[in-house]
Structure formats: C-alpha cells, structure tokens
C-alpha cells in the first residue's frame, strides 16, 4: 500500500479508496450472507433476525 507511483498519481488517496471499498464490500457480503442466504442452516439460525429486519424470508 506504500508503493510510490512513478506517474505521480496520488497513491495514498487511491489506497484509501481501495481500503474503504474493501470495508464496504466486506459489510455487504456479511449482510447478504445473513439476510439472503438460501442455505437452510443459515436461514434457520438467523430466522428471527431475518423476520425482525424485514428481509424477504421464505
């Protein structure tokens, strides 16, 4: 993340954007897994949570 760009682009700003995007994607992935997974076991374990968060269920 601390490589120096020969072209003079703003590396720290690019790296910052990448890291923020990574954090947002991780969050979206976990929310998607909890709320949208079609796996029966995940559905059953998080069942009351899904209903209480108004995720589409069943």
């Amino acid at each position, binding site marked *: 993340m601390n490589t120096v760009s020969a072209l003079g682009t703003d590396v720290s700003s690019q790296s910052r954007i990448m890291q923020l995007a990574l954090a947002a994607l991780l969050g979206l992935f976990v929310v998607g897994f909890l709320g949208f997974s079609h*796996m029966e076991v995940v559905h059953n374990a998080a069942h009351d949570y899904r209903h*209480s968060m108004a995720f589409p*269920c069943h």
Partner: protein
Amino acid sequence: MSVFRNVVFIAAISGLLAGVILAALQTYSTDPLIFKAETYENAGGHDHGAAPVAGTEATAPAADAQAVAPAEEEAWAPADGFERFAYSALANIVSGIAFGLILVAVSEFAGGIANWRQGVFWGFAGFAVFTLAPGLGLPPELPAMPAADLVSRQIWWTLTVVATAAGLALIAFKQSLPLAVLGVALIVAPHIVGAPQPESHESPIPADLHHSFVVAVTISNLVFWVVLGAVAGYVRNRFMSEPAQSLNGRLA
C-alpha cells in the same frame, strides 16, 4: 491497510453496541410476535423454517433449489429457548458490525462523520435505505404470511436499497437541482415499478398482530440505526488520522 483497520475498529465498536441493543429490543418486541404467529402457522398454514419442516413441502422450491445438504431430510435449526435466542443475538451483532462497515466506509467517502449528531443523521439515512424504503413495498412479514416468489422479492429489495441510497446521496452531496430531482426520481422509481406481491393476501395471521409487528420492526430498526450512526460519529475522530471535515451546516 491502516484506513481499513480503522474502519473495522469503528464499525466493530458501533456495531457491537447497536447490535446488542437491537437484540434486546427484538427479544421484547418482535420475537414474541413471531412466536405467536408460529402458533397460527403450525395450526395449518404453510411450512416454515423455525419448525424444522422447511424444504420438505412443495411450497419452498426456492429453498430446495439451493439447499446445500440435500442428504438431510430436515435441516438443523436451533432449539427453542436459549439456543434460538443466542443465534438471533449473534446474527444481530454480526449484522450490526456489517452494517457499521457499510455506514462508516460510505461516510468516509463523503469526508467522515464528524460527531455524534452527524452520526444520527447518517443513521436516519441508513434506516431510510435499509428499512423504510424496502419496507414500503415489502412490509415486514410474520411466519405463515403469504408472499411472492422469494428470489424476485430479494431482487426488488436489493434494487430498492441501491436506488434509495443513490437517490439520497445525490440529494445530500451534489448541490445541483437537476441531480436532486434525479435523486427523488430514483427513490420513487422502485415503488412505481412495485414490489412483487403474492397472488392473494389472505392470511391466517390476524391483521392487528401483523400491524404490531410492522411497528415493532420499524421502530427497533430506527433505534438500531440511530445508535449505530451516533456511536460511529462519536468514536470516529479517535481512530481516523484525518479529522472529519465539518459539512458547514449542510447536514448537521
């Protein structure tokens, strides 16, 4: 990866607190209504995941299609009582941190949340995006209630969340009238298209029970989002090296 690490810290602290509060709220507001609805369901409604019969009847083709463990007749489900509560609480805390990651990362693109009051407004935005907008077309459902095809509802839910978030962002951060109009149009559009609806709304669940559930879900989610945003805003400047810029009265 210091930015990523700091975002994770802020999301973990705010998500843990908001998730614990949400779990407590659900235990006393929404969960009793779900348990009550299941008594109607077990009295002859269609199948449902809490009772370990989901996927064994023809009413759950979507779940069948992607079930990972077809060898088992009945998928595992937590036992009623403490085990069920524990898994719900765990789901709440994990999702609190995950929503926190989304909220903190997105707000950093907009300059960061400067204080707890700005955080409350960010929380309102999260509530509008993830609860209010999708809940207008697809109100929170109780077990045994009729519903349209699961995949089409999940697609509508996702597109509504994306459109509402984009619309709010255009209105809040682009100081341009045409873009604000576009933002409103984006927020309205999913509701003109309309959410997938069941063929019949006839339901074994009494209307007043469902109404209580919709209110309980909406209010508990509002509290969750406000706490998440406020705590994230409160701790944000302790972790990030660059202080959040004041939005000059534009947002808080």
